[in-house]
C-alpha cells in the first residue's frame, strides 16, 4: 500500500478512484501518564511517553485507513491528510488523530 499526500503517483497511472478512506484514534485516557508527562515537561526532558502515545494512536488511525482501502480493492492512498485536534478532556489532553485520503488503484 503506497501512502502519499500528493495528488498523483509519479510514473504510475491511476486507473480507478475507489473512494474515501478514513481512520481515527483518540488518546488521553490515562491521567497518570499525563501527569508523568507533565512532570517531564517541567523537568525539561522530552515527553517520550506522550510522544509514543501519539505515535501509537497515529498508527492505529493509519492502519484502520489502510484496511478500509484494502476492503475497497485499492492499492494506494493519495491526497493523504493527517490532523491532530485537541478535544479537551482531563487537562486538555484528549487528542483526536484523524487520517484520511483517497483510495485508488494504480498500474
Amino acid at each position: 500500500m503506497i501512502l502519499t499526500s500528493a495528488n498523483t503517483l509519479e510514473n504510475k497511472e491511476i486507473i480507478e478512484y475507489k473512494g474515501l478512506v478514513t481512520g481515527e484514534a483518540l488518546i488521553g485516557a490515562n491521567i497518570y501518564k499525563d501527569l508523568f508527562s507533565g512532570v517531564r515537561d517541567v523537568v525539561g526532558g522530552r515527553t517520550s511517553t506522550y510522544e509514543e502515545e501519539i505515535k501509537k494512536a497515529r498508527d492505529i488511525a493509519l492502519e484502520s485507513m489502510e484496511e478500509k482501502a484494502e476492503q475497497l480493492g485499492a492499492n494506494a492512498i493519495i491526497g493523504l491528510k493527517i490532523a491532530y485536534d485537541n478535544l479537551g478532556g482531563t487537562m486538555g489532553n484528549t487528542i483526536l488523530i484523524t487520517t484520511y485520503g483517497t483510495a485508488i488503484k494504480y498500474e
Partner: protein
Amino acid sequence: MNIDKQRMANLQKAFNSIVIGTVAGLATYAFFLYFNIAIFGWNLGLLFAPLVAGYAETFVANKLIGENIGAISAFILFIVTVVYGFIIANPTLGYNIITIGSIAIIIQAAIPTFINYFIIVVIFGTLSYLTGFFKKILDKIKYTIFPEKKKEDIIDTVPLFNERESNELINSQDFIYITSTDPIDLDYEIIGFFYTTSIASRNTRIIKLSPEKIERQQLNDLKKGKDECLIRLADKIKSSGGNAVIDLDIVYFLNGLGGSDFQIIARGMGVKIKEEHPTS
C-alpha cells in the same frame, strides 16, 4: 461650559453625600462603641456602621443627584472600623472569619451587582457544575412527579464501531470523495464549494464509566458524526448536479459551553466528473 458646571455641581453633591454618609457611619460606630453593643466581644458597629454609612450616602445621593454613586463612605467606614477595632483597640485580634465576613458585606454593599453576579453565577454556578447539585435536586423532583420516566443512567458497554459497514456506506452512493486538491487525470467540471456540519454532543450519561470507555464512546460519536456529514455533503452536491467532491477536508473541533460538543465539518469543491474517465 454649562455641562462642565453641571458636572462640577454633581461632583460637589456627590462629595457632600459621601461626607454625610461617612459622618452618619462614624456616628453609628461611636454609638455602638459607647454603649458597647457586642456579641462575643465583637462590636456590632463593625457591621452596622459601614451599612449605615452606605445607606445614608445612597439615600442622600439619590435625593441630590438622582443616582447611586457607589457607597464610597462604606469603604471609608470599613477602613476606619477595621483600623480602630482590630488594630488600635484590640491588636491581638487579627484576621478571622468575622473580618472576612464583614469585608464581604461591605464590598457587597458597595458594588452589589458585581458581587451578586460573582456569588450567584460564578461561585454557585461552578459548584453546581462540578457537583451537579442543582441537577440532582431537579432530577429528584422530576422523578418524584414522573417516576416512570426515569432512565438508566449508566451504559455498561460501549460497542465497537463498525468500520467496515461505515466504509461501505460512504463509498456506495454513486458518489466519489477525493481528497486530492487537483486530480489531474480526471476531466471534471466545477460546480461550487460545498460544506456540511454536524454536531456530536458529549454523552454525559456515561460519566461513571472508565475513561477508556468514555473515549471509545466519544470516538464512536465522532465517527458517526463524520459519516453523517459526508453523506449530507454528497446529497447536497448530487442535488446540484455533481457526482464527486475534490479537495475534501474533514475538520473536527470543540464547540459549546466548556467544550461540551464536538463539531464536524466536511467541505470541498463539488464537481461533475465526465463519464469516460475512471471512477469506481
